[in-house]
């Protein structure tokens, strides 16, 4: 059974119809990648799953439960974390406060905290610093760390490598591999090499419609499709 099923999802933002009949399944475990060009509807898909924009019509099913129409807070409590494109960190709060806010009871699970500190050692160094003073890469680490400070079944991640230095991208790659061992990741990404290295299954969205679904291995091997759907040359 799929962890997440999206059926005929349509989302309008104001008077604009952004998603049309989006349908795909995210299997449990590993990294599922949603690819697409700029403005194709990737971010809107994640936001619609998270309830930040309400799809109408269409349905979203998570762990067999229909979550369409639930408010964002209830969706999050079911075990879905969101790492937005702008990272969504609270700049006026310290690194510690950003993380403690994401815990269910205001206290860290020592094992999970140790895991976060192992994955992102830089965060421990800036533990009591306000988050606005972090570098772009450190902010992204904090945003991802916040998503795993509690056990989550599904983590929605929107373009985590955008604007990051290659060394940070490599660190992110390693972190996502480790995280994917205990949670499913739905990754939206434009950096195809990063997506290819992590992804097991994938879909391509174009102009608000899912236009292709397969395994990442199959897709990456088809240079014609890469060019046609993503504008990538061999």
């Amino acid at each position: 059974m799929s962890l997440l099923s999206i059926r005929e999802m349509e989302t309008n933002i104001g008077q604009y119809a952004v998603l049309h009949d989006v349908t795909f399944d995210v299997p449990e475990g590993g990294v599922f990648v949603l690819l697409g060009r700029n403005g194709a509807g990737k971010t809107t898909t994640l936001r619609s799953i998270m309830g930040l924009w309400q799809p109408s019509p269409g349905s979203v099913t998570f762990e067999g439960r229909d979550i369409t129409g639930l408010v964002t807070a209830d969706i999050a409590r079911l075990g879905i974390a969101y790492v937005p494109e702008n990272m969504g960190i609270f700049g006026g709060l310290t690194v510690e406060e950003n993380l403690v806010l994401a815990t269910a009871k205001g206290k860290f699970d020592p094992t999970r905290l140790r895991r976060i500190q192992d994955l992102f050692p830089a965060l421990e160094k800036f533990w009591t610093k306000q988050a606005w003073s972090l570098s772009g890469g450190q902010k992204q680490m904090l945003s991802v760390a916040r998503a795993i400070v509690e056990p989550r079944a599904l983590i929605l991640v929107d373009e985590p490598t955008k604007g990051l230095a290659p060394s940070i991208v490599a660190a992110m790659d390693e972190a996502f591999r480790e995280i994917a061992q205990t949670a499913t990741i739905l990754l939206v990404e434009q950096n195809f090499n990063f997506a290819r290295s992590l992804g097991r299954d994938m879909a391509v969205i174009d102009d608000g419609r899912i236009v292709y679904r397969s395994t990442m291995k199959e897709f990456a091997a088809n240079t014609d499709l890469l060019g046609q759907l993503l504008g990538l040359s061999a």
Partner: protein
Amino acid sequence: MDNLSDTLGRFGGVNLLPVALAGLSFVLIGAPSSWVTLTVAGLSMGMMLFLMASGLSLVFGLMDVLNFGHSAFISFGAFIAATVLAALGGWLDSDSVLLASAALGLALLAAIAFGLAAGLFFETVIIRPVYRDHLRQILITMGALIVSEQIILAVWGGSPITVPRPPFLEGAWIIGDVSIEIYRVFAFALGAGVFVGLMLLLNRTRIGLLIRAGVENREMVEALGFKINRLFIGAFMLGSALAALGGAMWAGYETLITPALGGEMMIVVFIVVIIGGLGSIQGTLLGAIIVGLTANYVGYLAPKLALASNMILMMAILMWRPSGLRPAIK
């Protein structure tokens, strides 16, 4: 320029502004006793403005709501406290400090209780339907302010009402040539206590953490699993209660109040919030102290400029720092 800014930052940065203002006015005023009296008056006025404005700043910053009806809570707080004090006149007139204190405490509690209840009603009935729509917020909250003033007129009448003070807060302490009004010291101490309480709430509790996070990014707070609407109601009720408390204290300060009180205070309260920076309690305190000191110093040095002084101050600060002195979001 950067070096100067860094050096000032190490010594307190914009927090030094009230000190600089006091230092400059000391030179201009010349007479130390007058300067001390004006400074104490400015600080106590600032603390009362802080009480009135802190809630508005939170509501503005957290909920992105332009609540022009905020001053209705100030007015009602003032009139309810005045009514309770008048009803307990016997306690105030007795020789017992305990009874007089109880009368004052009950008057302030009545104002706070009204603020909490009215805040709940206001947020649920008036504000909630107009979230994310500033134009409708301005129209509906201005309308609510007018209705509130009419209710005050209907209940308390249009004539000015005298506000009795407990005898132990009457008079002044005379230290050499300096006269310090006791009520002003009390107002300052109460405002300082509320500031400390708010800072503890914001920095030492989970609710406070949520409010600070919500001021920055409401959407993300929801994505972490928190229902922001509940936070909104709580923050709005707290802000309304603080405004009512500020109104009650202001009533005792002025000792004569009219139904126009709220409207008169509204502009000053907005100036404080804008100068301080939206959503920031420290910024609101800083803005309130600067406005309080400026009003008193300018009132003494150039009385004809007194009315314009706050506007000039706001323009100068916004030209220097468009987001205010200490905005919550950097």
